């Protein structure tokens, strides 16, 4: 056996665990769920092929599909831009070299690694209409108390506000991006007479645009999949205002035992996310600048 052949075998052996993992835990479940989306299955009994019935039901008979998609779209398209902007605004001062800045960075990052269940319980208490911190703070500035997650008009905004708390992950990525902007560009802009705001607009924003783009794409994908907080805090209520897409999918799978239909919903979500991610990539050509042009 030649050296080249031996090296090839070794290479395949080294990547084999990854390939096996991909096949077993990603490719096979995806293929199975695609097959299930054309079936009716209660998880314990036989699988019945139903053709496109599930897809027809999703668009014609499932009212909650529309409701949950609407709620999720609201949460995503209002929440993600706000979330991203807040992360960037937070990263700007935290990228400075002030004394003790690491502690502030840690403080902002910690919520993003706090278990989602613990966060949800904490926010239930924060939003309590009678003794919650949110209404106490509003009271200080003379704003009347709100119903927050218990009020059908306030529930979704309350979830968006809550999402700001876990902005630490995006903030860290922005921080890394900001620290990668060459100082000489700021110096040159300064010599040209650009103030802080202009420097931010014409130097910082274009140079971190790939980071912003990455955060927006990841934020949109994650946002479409919001589940834990809604499941624990409101279980879709009040009045279905927080019935998000994945919660609806979960109910169909594990409460209604419609695993076939739940798989259909999962593929529906995949297509929706793919569509909006595609739009983001198309739009990115107009505003995302890479240091090295890649053909």
């Amino acid at each position, binding site marked *: 056996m030649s050296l080249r052949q031996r090296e090839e075998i070794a290479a395949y052996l080294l990547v084999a665990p990854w390939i096996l993992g991909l096949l077993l835990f990603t490719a096979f479940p995806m293929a199975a769920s695609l097959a299930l989306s054309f079936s009716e299955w209660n998880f314990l009994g036989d699988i019945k092929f*139903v053709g496109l019935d599930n897809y027809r039901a999703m668009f014609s008979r499932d009212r*909650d599909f529309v409701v949950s998609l609407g709620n999720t779209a609201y949460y995503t398209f209002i929440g993600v831009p706000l979330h991203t902007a807040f992360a960037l605004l937070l990263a700007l001062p935290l990228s400075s070299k002030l004394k003790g800045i690491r502690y502030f960075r840690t403080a902002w990052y910690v919520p993003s690694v706090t278990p989602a269940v613990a966060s949800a319980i904490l926010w239930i208490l924060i939003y309590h209409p*009678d003794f919650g911190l949110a209404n106490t703070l509003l009271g200080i500035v003379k704003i009347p108390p709100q*119903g927050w997650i218990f009020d*059908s008009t306030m529930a979704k905004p309350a979830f968006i506000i809550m999402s700001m708390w876990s902005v630490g992950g995006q903030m860290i990525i922005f921080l890394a991006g900001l620290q990668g902007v060459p100082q000489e560009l700021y110096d040159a802009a300064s010599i040209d007479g650009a103030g802080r705001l202009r420097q931010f607009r014409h130097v910082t924003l274009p140079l971190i645009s790939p980071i912003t783009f990455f955060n927006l794409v990841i934020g949109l994908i994650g946002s479409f999949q919001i589940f834990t907080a809604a499941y624990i805090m409101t279980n879709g209520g009040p009045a279905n205002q927080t019935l998000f897409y994945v919660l609806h999918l979960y109910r169909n799978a594990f409460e209604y035992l419609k695993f076939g239909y739940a798989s259909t919903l999962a593929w529906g979500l995949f297509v929706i996310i793919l569509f909006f991610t595609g739009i983001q990539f198309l739009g990115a050509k107009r505003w995302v600048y890479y240091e090295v042009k890649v053909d």
Partner: protein
Amino acid sequence: MKMPFKKKSIGRRALLRYSVAGGAAASFMAALGGCGETQVVTETKIQEVVKEVPVERVVTQIVERDRPVEVEKVVEVERVVTKTVKEVVVEVQEKVVTKVVEVEKPKPQALTLVFSTWWPLEMVGHGVYTQKYIDVYQAKYPHVTIEYRNWPFGEYHTKLLTQAAAGTAPDVFAYSGIFFPKFVKAGGAYPIDELVRTDAEFEIEDFVEQSLRLSVVDGRLWGIPHIGNAWAVLYNQQVLEEAGVEDINEMDAAGRWNWETHLEALQKITTRDDAGKAERIGMNDPGLNVLGIHSWAWQNGGNLLNQPGLGEFVLNEPAGVAAVEWAADLVRNHQVAASPADAFGNSYAELNNGRFGLIYGWAIYSRVKGFPVDVAHPPSGPAGQTTVFHPNTLGIAAKTKFPEDSWNLIALQLSKQGDLDQTKIMGVISRRKSNLLKMAEVVKGQFGIGHPEVVAQVIENGRTFDVTEFQQEIGNAITPVLLQNAGGARPQTQLDGPKPGVGHLLAPRRG
């Protein structure tokens, strides 16, 4: 040619003696093998011995069932044979009895049963009861070891479902009554009709019929009702007295406890500060959910689903809508019941500390010492006085390897004594008719309820609501509407909204 032995004539008595001995031994051997007896016996050509057929049947039963009482039946056979030849029988009888004792005492194979619920063994009440009956079971069946598992209620049923799919579900499990039919329909449970029928000591007829309804699916029995309870009014006597409200049980006894007096009482109890914020609220959330709404609908002559087909949603008919309006108005218009936000805290704690004048809760309630809380029947509506009765279920996994041993664990826990112990230790209501009257006595002192007879009355009037396999879909469809009615943000009084959705859900499935 000389014979190798001397030919000896056999007398009639000797022939009979040998034949009887040979016949009995042949019968015994045949019995041990569990095969047909007639060939062996026929060869002896002795009529009297042929009558020994019962020996074989009896011994066969002993082999299969290992019941010590069967030995007595062998003695019965002895009497039959005695009629024929007295001298021989003694010898044969001794052989038979000795063999029976040797063969019929096989050691049961050691096995482990997995038993699951949603409470830990350390839990006061439920845990104590469960541990007690695990111990009793293991003492009675020493060859069985119980492996107990528990998960929080929120994830319990999903966990059981995935385990059932993997074939690793617990042999015996507790299951929420309203979710059980769906689990059965999916194929997760083992039918227990036959186990119940062959268990002479377990009297299924003793169970309150209402309590069995959630365990019967497609005409078969799949579980036995477990830890049931019924909705009742629990009221803080001190708060009512301060508010000038007559004692509810006195009103009930006088036939004046109805929707009107209920509302009047709540109005008297509720107090607000200058800003309109409630300081004391008449009652907790009036049951704006799929379970609670049944009481109001029944009291008004309505229902959630049509009877007996259960395929049609009827809460949106006039009686149902009026009942929902009534319950929602307590929150929205009269503002005497807690909104979902007001009800955020623990209702029982709020009752004890006097924030709520009354709450709707389980009939047997452990009163905190020093708090004057009593129990009453829910009020009469236009269609009468009734309430919701909700039992959970103990079932057996479809793929269990030990159905009989699993059944023994259920039968022990839900025996007459087990049922009564549940009331005594857990504070749940009995499901056995024979225990209903004893129950009041059992809870007296154990649970500080001033009117134990009211509890019995609540159970008597309690109704189990109809559950279909679409229970959760219906609940998820109507609960938002009920809450929206009460929330006041966007009042919506018609229930036509969920009808198409629920109608679709209740439609026959493909295939």
